[in-house]
């Protein structure tokens, strides 16, 4: 082993003409930014994103397959089925669950959490930064593959749907909002339980899958309900076939206002936005609080 002549090799942060510890550090945000980037890099190096990307390619693949086999299928139907049923119902909870449940637990299982706990980062901040990186990853995947799905549905199709790019952007926004809520929720679950994956799958299947489809107030506790309301109020899902016009969303989501005036009491788009964001914040705050006490 050799030593640098002008510095103390065993105190690398303190060269011979060193400044005091406080003066040679970066800003207070340096550890947090580094942790954020480290978490993103960790996700990129795992095989998880490839599995997720493979799953996310399913709707685009299905769209191409259906278009290739049934020439008279309406793009709007595909749009609704794939972008507003399949993706939010199956893929968004899954991607959020897989990433959020592992964001702390993976570090614990691989025992790399030690390297983070002995840094000048409060535990609550550690949780929040890791959640932020998780949300970033999940949202990026969501946006990219929502756009791909729309491309597979609409490119080269005879569509009467107005302004497809804007619709695609809105769908990506709605999906991103849902994924933020799911990540926050499953992040909290990962702090509350040692088996977040199991509980998360149960939650996704029972609460988001079953309760959300019941026309009762119980669906007010689900993420997908608010996501659907935002989509229902901001996008059209009307198709005409054989001289008959139908609203796909109203039928499938039990939101047929024409038949049931009580449905007018459904929350406005802004209320849904507030509920999803406030719920996400509440979950994050609670999880961060729990982390700081551990």
């Amino acid at each position, binding site marked *: 082993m050799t030593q640098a002549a002008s510095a103390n090799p065993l*105190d690398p942060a303190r060269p011979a003409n060193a400044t005091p510890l406080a003066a040679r550090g970066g800003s207070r945000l340096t550890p947090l930014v580094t942790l954020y980037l*480290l978490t993103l890099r960790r996700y990129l190096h795992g095989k998880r994103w490839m599995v997720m990307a493979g799953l996310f390619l399913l709707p685009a693949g299905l769209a191409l397959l259906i278009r290739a086999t049934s020439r008279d299928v309406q793009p709007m139907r595909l749009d609704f089925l794939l972008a507003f049923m399949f993706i939010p119902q199956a893929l968004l909870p899954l991607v959020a669950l897989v990433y959020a449940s592992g964001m702390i637990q993976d570090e614990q299982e691989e025992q790399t959490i030690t390297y983070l706990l002995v840094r000048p980062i409060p535990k609550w901040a550690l949780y929040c930064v890791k959640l932020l990186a998780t949300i970033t990853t999940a949202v990026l995947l969501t946006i990219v593959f929502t756009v791909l799905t729309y491309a597979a549905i609409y490119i080269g199709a005879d569509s009467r749907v107005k302004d497809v790019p804007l619709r695609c952007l809105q769908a990506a926004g709605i999906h991103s909002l849902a994924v933020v809520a799911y990540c926050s929720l499953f992040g909290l679950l990962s702090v509350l339980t040692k088996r977040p994956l199991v509980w998360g799958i149960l939650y996704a299947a029972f609460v988001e899958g079953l309760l959300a489809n019941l026309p009762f107030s119980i669906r007010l506790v689900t993420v997908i309900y608010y996501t659907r309301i935002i989509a229902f109020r901001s996008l059209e899902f009307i198709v005409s076939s054989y001289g008959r016009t139908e609203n796909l969303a109203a039928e499938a989501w039990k939101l047929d206002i024409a038949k049931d005036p009580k449905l007018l009491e459904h929350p406005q788009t802004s209320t849904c936005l507030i509920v999803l964001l406030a719920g996400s914040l509440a979950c994050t705050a609670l999880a961060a609080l729990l982390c700081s006490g551990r």
Partner: protein
Amino acid sequence: MTGPAEVHPIVAFHEVSKRYRNVIGLNKLSIQVQAGVTGLLGPNGAGKSTLLQLATGQLYPSQGQVRVLGQRVWNNPSLNRQIGLCPEQDAFYEWMTGWDFVYTSARLSGMNRPTAREAAGRTLEAVGMTKNKDRAIRGYSKGMRQRTKLAQALVHGPQVLFLDEPLTGTDPVARRDLIDIICRLGSEGKSVLVSSHVLHEVQSMTPYIILLNHGRLVAAGHVRQIRDLIDKHPHHIAIVCEQYRKLAGRLLAEEDVEGIKIAAAERQLMVETRSPGAFYSRLPELALQEGMTIEELYSDDDNLEAVFKYLVNK
């Protein structure tokens, strides 16, 4: 415990207990570690890692107080700028290169980019990893991994270092290098608490030791002080002699001999005495008188291993 230089303790445990449900990790432990290098010794399950985890704020004590540099440890992230930990577990971000890992550790400790870059390079040089710094960690040997772990603990220039079994699995060259580094850290004014269950390794780093067993403090202090403890208790002296039976009969007549065990196969006597000094000085004369030749004479109780075994089995 009396340390080499300073009066104020660097690490202080006061009546600290740590329970994991029904298992006790540490039991009402009170110690004070002074500046310099201190060895933390004990068999597996003695509580060494628990102690280090408590000292680095990774665990909350079930009872008692832990202070490092006079500050409370739990939920005190700013203290982490002044401490470094080399954990026992062989865990890394395997996809990183050694340089990347140490640089990231420096950045996580709050250093800006140029300082972190410089510090990472210099630390890797100090632990002898410059040549391999650009290789992925997943391809490192055990020795390289230990050196890299030590580098991440050192990179931000901490005042206090906690090293959990840093020599585990290393080859003799790496072991020698790491021991040299640890000794140098001590001589440069760093405080190092290094755990191990290999006693001669600790002896080569420091004469100051803390002995733990079953979560309790067995002994603490200079190795001389600890050896004094054992002098109050029977020493075991092995004697290899052709006429071992005759010698045994003769020794039993001596007042300070507490007992004798005979190992006929090795022609060996294991003599138990409370006055080893007097026994050693009288033995040659006795052998001469009886016309016996002593082929071998030794006592395991003279090394730290024996002190350790004696104290933990007490």
